[in-house]
Every structure is written in C-alpha cells, then in structure tokens.
C-alpha cells in the first residue's frame, strides 16, 4: 500500500464523512432551525370578550406556523402611551415581530417607524396611514361602514334623528367606518348628530343611558363593538320605559349577538375576526421570512340582522367555534 493510495483513501473517507454530515445537517441542525418565532400581539384595549375570536385565530395560526405568541393587553382602553411602552418592552424581550392594533394614528407613528427598523410590524384592525408600506390586516372598513349605512337606508330608518356614537376616533379603522357611514347617510339625511362615548364600558353605558333618556334619537350608529354593547345594554334597560330607537352597529360580542337576537339591536356589521387574528400572524411570519407580498389583506365581513343570523354562513361568523 503506497502512501499515495493511503492518502487517497483517507481523503475519500473524509469526503464521505463530510457528505454524510451535509446530508444529515437537517437532523443535526434541525433544532436550531425550528426555534419558534416570538410574535407579540398588542391590543388596543383591555382583555375583553371582543378579542376572544381574534385570539382564537391567533392561536390557530400560532399552532399551524409554530409560533410563540404573547398576547399583550392594555390596562385601559386606547392607551397609546402604554402601547408604545409595551411595544418597546416586547422588542427588548426579543420578539421577532409585533402585531399591533394602534390605538392612535398620530402617537404611534414614530414608535412604529422606529420599531420597523429592527423587526417587522404588522397592524391589525386599525393602521397608521401615514407610514408607507405598513402591513395592515383588516376588512375594508370604509366598505363596512357604507354597507351598514346602506342597510339603514334599506330599512328606511333615515327619516328621524340619526346619531353616530363616536369613540376611539383616532383609530384609523373607526375613522374609516365613520367615513363609510357618512358617505351614504350624508346624502340621504341632514339630521345627523354625534355623541361622544367614553372608553370605559361602565362610563359608556352610563353616558349612553343618560343621552338616550334625555335626547330622543331615531337611529343610533355605533362604530365599534364595545360602544355597541354599551348602547345596546342601555337601550335594553330603557325599553321598559318606552324608548324606541333603532340601533345599528359594527363589531360583535356575545352580548351584542344576544341583543341582536332579541332585536334590541337592529342590525350589525361584523368582520371575520377569526381570520383577522389568523392572517395577522400569518402576515407576521411571512414578513419575518421576507416573503411578504406587500399587499394588505382584506378580511370579509357581513351585515347581519336577527332574521339571517342563524344562516350557516352567518352563524360561523357570529359564533366562534370553540375547539
């Protein structure tokens, strides 16, 4: 056995070992690659029931895409300062992406721009229009608002005094909904008023109740679920005393649904919140993997009243499938 042959033998053996390692790198290095992404979801309010369906979607997506989601809620509704500090905390804690429902389009602009430099930021429900190319998962809120308004027109509830309940108007989605509603109702009614409803549910309930008692209104329009629930409850409690107001609104909670069923609320517009949660995580993962297609995903929505709420499509939208 010459030295050359021995050398060739060892070289080929080494080549085999190396190729063996390359072939099995998946198995050997798998654990590293499979480290789940950390994604933080920051809501724009307290942990309320209105987030359950979104959270279900988020959880399903987390399971499907092997993501660890930390779901962060605020101590008070629409607290943009708290949102900013929480976002910074999550980034420091090593989140790979942030999914956020900005409480305020102006306050959060800079922090989000800053955060985007290090990790992907996805906005859900509301967004910040002034930031270019910010991924945004939501239904078309303008369409949602105008669809609800068209329902009001179709129900012929435009003759009396129309009151739009304003809350969280700094959120882009609420604003868009408002614009949608106005775009339709503005042309058919001159009699539109605005009530400002506070963020806190109890305060909102009280305010709505007081207003309903004192100021007669024919049609109420709530632009988000919490306000709708507050005003619906107030109306339910006042119905015995004989107030008669048609309530329309956007968003859902179980109470809202039951009020819809008992026809306290006339009609509601709901977006597919489950999809909202699912797709926001999916988009975050895509952004982390740099696979983002750039376009903002639009979620489907439906306008539901008590007659069609148990149709097979609508019941899937209204009643989260608990699994």
């Amino acid at each position, binding site marked *: *056995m010459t030295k050359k*042959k021995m050398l060739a*033998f060892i070289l*080929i053996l080494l080549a*085999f070992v190396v*190729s*063996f390692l390359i*072939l099995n790198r998946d198995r050997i290095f798998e654990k590293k690659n499979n480290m789940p992404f950390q994604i933080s979801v920051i809501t724009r309010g307290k942990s309320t029931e209105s987030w359950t369906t979104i959270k*279900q*979607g988020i959880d*399903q997506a987390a399971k499907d895409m092997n993501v660890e989601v930390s779901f962060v809620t605020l101590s008070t509704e629409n607290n943009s300062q708290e949102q900013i500090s929480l976002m910074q905390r999550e980034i420091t804690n090593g989140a790979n992406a942030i999914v956020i429902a900005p409480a305020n389009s102006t306050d959060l602009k800079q922090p989000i721009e800053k955060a985007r430099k290090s990790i992907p930021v996805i906005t859900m429900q509301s967004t910040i229009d002034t930031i270019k190319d910010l991924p945004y998962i939501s239904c078309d809120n303008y369409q949602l608002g105008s669809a609800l308004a068209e329902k009001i027109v179709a129900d012929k509830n435009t003759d009396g005094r129309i009151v739009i309940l304003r809350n969280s108007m700094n959120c882009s989605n609420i604003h868009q909904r408002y614009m949608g509603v106005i775009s339709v109702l503005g042309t058919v009614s001159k009699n539109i008023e605005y009530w400002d409803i506070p963020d806190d549910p109890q305060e909102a309930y009280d305010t709505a109740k007081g207003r309903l008692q004192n100021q007669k209104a024919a049609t109420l329009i709530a632009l988000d679920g919490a306000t709708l629930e507050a005003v619906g409850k107030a109306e339910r409690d006042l119905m015995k005393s004989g107030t008669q107001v048609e309530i329309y609104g956007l968003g859902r909670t*179980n*109470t809202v*649904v*039951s009020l819809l*069923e*008992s*026809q306290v609320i006339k009609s509601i517009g709901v977006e*597919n919140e*489950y*999809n909202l949660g*699912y*797709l926001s995580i999916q988009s975050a993962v895509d952004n982390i993997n740099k696979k983002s297609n750039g376009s903002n995903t639009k979620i*489907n929505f439906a306008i539901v009243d*008590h007659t069609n709420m*148990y149709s*097979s499509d609508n*019941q*899937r939208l*209204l*009643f*989260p*499938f*608990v*699994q």
Partner: protein
Amino acid sequence: MHDKIRSIIDKSKHFLQKRSLQFTISITFTAVAVIGMVIVGVSLSMRFISSSEKMASASSTRMVDQVNFNLDTYLRNMLRISDSMYYRVIKNADLATDNISGDMSLLYETNRDLLISIGVFSSSGKVIAAEPLTQLKSSSGAVNQDWFINASRKIENCHFSTPHVQNLFVDPDNKYRWVVSLSRSVELTNAGSIAHGVLLVDMNFSGIEQICKNVDLGESGYIYLIDGNGEIIYHPRQQLIYSNLAHENNTVAAQYDDGNHQETFEGQQRLVTVKTAGYTGWKIIAVTPTTDITSDYYQIKIFALFFIFFAIFLLIFVNMFLSSRIANPIKELEHSVKDIEKGKLSDVDISVSSSGSYEVQHLSKTIRSMVNQLRNLMDDIVVEQESKRKSELDALQSQINPHFLYNTLDSIIWMIENERYEGAVTMVTALARLFRISLSKGKNLITVADELEHVRNYLTIQKIRYKNKFCYDITAEPGVLECATIKLIVQPLVENAIYHGMEFMSGDGEINIKAYQKENDLFIDIIDNGLGMPQEQADALLLEETSKERGKGSGIGLKNVMERIQLYFGNEYGLAIYSEPDEGTTARIHLPMKTLEQLDLGKEDSTK
C-alpha cells in the same frame, strides 16, 4: 439475444485477458460487490417502502376503526338516551296528567357531560318539557329548524344534524353553543289521544371533537367527519374552513367508498381512508399526506445510497488491497521470468521473489531451482563447447601438414645433395623457427611480431621451394608489433595466396603483408597480385568448411580463421576478403588493438 450475450461475454473475456491479474481480480470482485450491494439496497428499500406504505394505510385503517368504534359508542349512548327518554318516559306518560320533567331532569343530570339540552316539542313547535333551560326564544321557531323538519318528515328514523349553534332557549349568560342535534318523531299521549311530537337531544359538540381530535396519524395526518352529503361535522381546522382560510376535499370524499384512496388535493398527494359510521351515514375520513409517509423515504433513500456507495468504496479498496496482495508476488515472479526470457540468468537469483501465498512461494522456489539447474547446464555446455573447440583448435594448430613437411625436407635434401648448404641451412633454420612459433609454449595468443616472424619463415621456405617464383614483402607499423593476435591466422591466408594466387601465374608473383593501425583497431592485410576471383566467390570462401584440397596447405580454412578471431574477440572482428579476377586478392584481418598484458588483465577481470 443469445448471440448478443455470448458476444458480450466474449468481448469481456477478451478484454480481461489483456488486463493484468490484479485488474481482473479487483474489477470482478468490485463488479460482483456492486451488483450485490445494489440488489440488496434496492430490494431492502423497496421492501421498506412497500411495507411502510402498508403500515401507513394499516395504521390509518386502524385509527379509523378506532374512531368509528368510539363514535359508534358515543352515538349509541345518545341513541340510548333518546330511547330511554322515549320508551321509558314519554311512552309511559299521559301528558295531561303526568309531568315528565322530573324523569327528563334525571336523565339530563346523569349525562350532562354529553348533553347540552333535551327537549320534547309538540308538532306545532311548543316546548312540552325541556332540560336544563325551558324558556324558548321568541325568535327561535323550532318548526323551521332542520332537525324538526327531518324528524317530522321521516318519523320512523332518528336524525343526526350537522353542527349548528343552538338557538332554542333563552340563556341568561348569552352563551351560544355548537351542538349536533339528534331528533326523532315521538308519539305523545295527551289525555288518551295520541299526537306526534319531536324529541330533541342536543349533543355537546366537544364530545365528538374529543373522539376525533386526539388521533395520532403521523406528523400532519388528521381525521375529519362528514355527513352523507359531504357537510363537515368535525374537522380539526373547522373554523379555518368555515372562514375560508383552509379547504377540505369533503364534497369529493363524500363519494368515496369505504377503504383506502389516493387523492390529490390542492397539489398535495394524500392517502385517504374512509369509513362509513353505522346508522348515521357519517363518514370518518383519515387523511395522511403522502409526504408524511414518503418524507422518510427520501432520507432512507439517501442513506441507502450513501451506505451503498460507502460499502462499494470500502470494497473497492479492500479488493485493491487483496488483489495487490495476490497479484503482486505473481507479478514479481512474472518480471523475474521475463528477465530469464531476456537471458539474464545470472541476475535472476536475486530477483526471483519468494513472497506471497504458499502457492506462489512454491512456484517461485521451483522456478529458482529450475533456473539454477538451467544455469548449471548452460555453464556446463559452455565449458564443454569451449573445451571441444579448444581441442579442435589444438588439433588444427598441431596439424602442420605432413605433405608440407615432407616437401620442405625433400627440398632441404635436394639442396644438400647439390651442395647448396647455405640454402639448406636457411631452410632448416626457417623450419625450426616455424615450429617454435607454431608451438609457442601452447599459448594461443602471441604478439604480431611473432606472428609476422612465423609468416616470414614460412615464406622463406616456400620461396625456396617455389624457386623464387614470387617475391614478398612484410611491413608493420612499429606500434602494432607488440599487439596481440591469435597465432597461426596469417599463415593460412599466405598459404592460400601462394597456392591459389601464385602457382598458376605466369609472371612474378608478389605477396605483401601489412600490419597497421586504423581507428584504434589492428589490421593485417595479405595482398597478392594473383589470379583473383569474383567477389561472390571470395565471400563464399568465408563460409566454406575446411579446404577439401588437403595435403597442399596447412589445412586451416578461412572460415576457421574467422571463427577463431570472433571466438576470441567478438563478432565485430574477423576476416574480410576483397578480390577481383586478374587483379589479385586482399585478405584483411581485423583485430582489437590490445597488447597481451591488456588481454590477460581483461580475462582476469571477467573471471573475477
């Protein structure tokens, strides 16, 4: 076909015959090993693939059977609840007098984990009894719901609905639950008269979910449940499907028969196992993506390939090693034999190797002894030949032709009788010298000077005998006189010149003998101006055996002279004859330019 195979075999045989033993051994071993490895690898991996496919489908079938069994048990429980309610409670009660709520409550309480609600409805949709909630929603309209319609339409059957949100009773907690409804038509006795009603058992959907959820079907396999129309009853990603984010091939699957199917859905190959559950007509469908089964194949194929290559590599190496171990001694032996072929007998002793296996060792030993024997034989032959030649030469040399001696002595007598004593003395002296040099103490090699002296004496005698019919001249360059020559090689040539050149000549003959050096070689020319002959005849002289005309000359032929020169000094030396008719003949002896001492030293060296 047969011929083709034959020709291939022949070709490969031919090919291998040209190659070395080592090559043949390693190539055949390797080919056999590779074929073996490939066959083993391929058959094993095929076996593995088919068995794992079988295992996958078997495990799907087993899982589906298990789920079917559980589901069947679950649904039978539901049916039993419904049956108990109907046959034990409703049948035995007259609604006008009896209250069935207590029994219903008991039944509900014992099965509350499985149930959402139990209710008995009149044909108009009014609640007769219900648990746990009793107040119907104003908007519910039981008669319009599918379960009520189905029960009323086919009164002999029990009906299972697809999952839906229960919306019958007022719930103070505003809870909306997904349920699967089991409804049947019942006969209600009211004050003796019989009316139709509907018994509704709402099963908790999570009961079904529990059965299907924790089924292990590999990495991404799962089980889902559809009804006879393909409507999804349970799916692990039900909400996603309801939200249009995921899709399922349920409508197609509804058409499948029980058993295993392969389908491609959304670009994914999947193994689908279908089982129709008894009574409900629901189908349990287990989905295993083929990639789940085959993801391992890729790895295993790669591993198999890798190991095959690795084994082949090792085998090639081992084969090379082994074949070199086998072939190298044979090769060495072959080299030795080649050397023997070339005649290097003397070197062989060192190079006939004795390494390798026993057989080769034996072979080399035999060859060695054979070579030794051969060498001894050859040596013997050489010695024999040499001694033979030597004795022959000796005999030749000692052959001073008696005729010549007689003639010479006769001439001497004749001279003495005529009182020409001087001439007689000259002749006797020359004869005596001639003999002395002829003998030269038995030496074969003498100096050129002696040889020329010998010739001179011979010519002296002959000149007298031939009555001065010719004259001669002997010249030698001084440098050549001390050089060695074989004795008695000039004299036969001179003799030839006299007998063939002078005897029949009319005029005076001339014989010139010249010894000179040319290009480091020694030449002795014997030139006569005799009759001469054609060149062909002259050339033939060198090939002729000893002259037949014995008696006249010394009897030593030209060929003999030539052989002797070549025997002593090699084939590059020898004798040449140039002749032309009527012009004369030149015989040229060509010898190496060496003194006696030099030759002696050379001989000593070679014997050493």
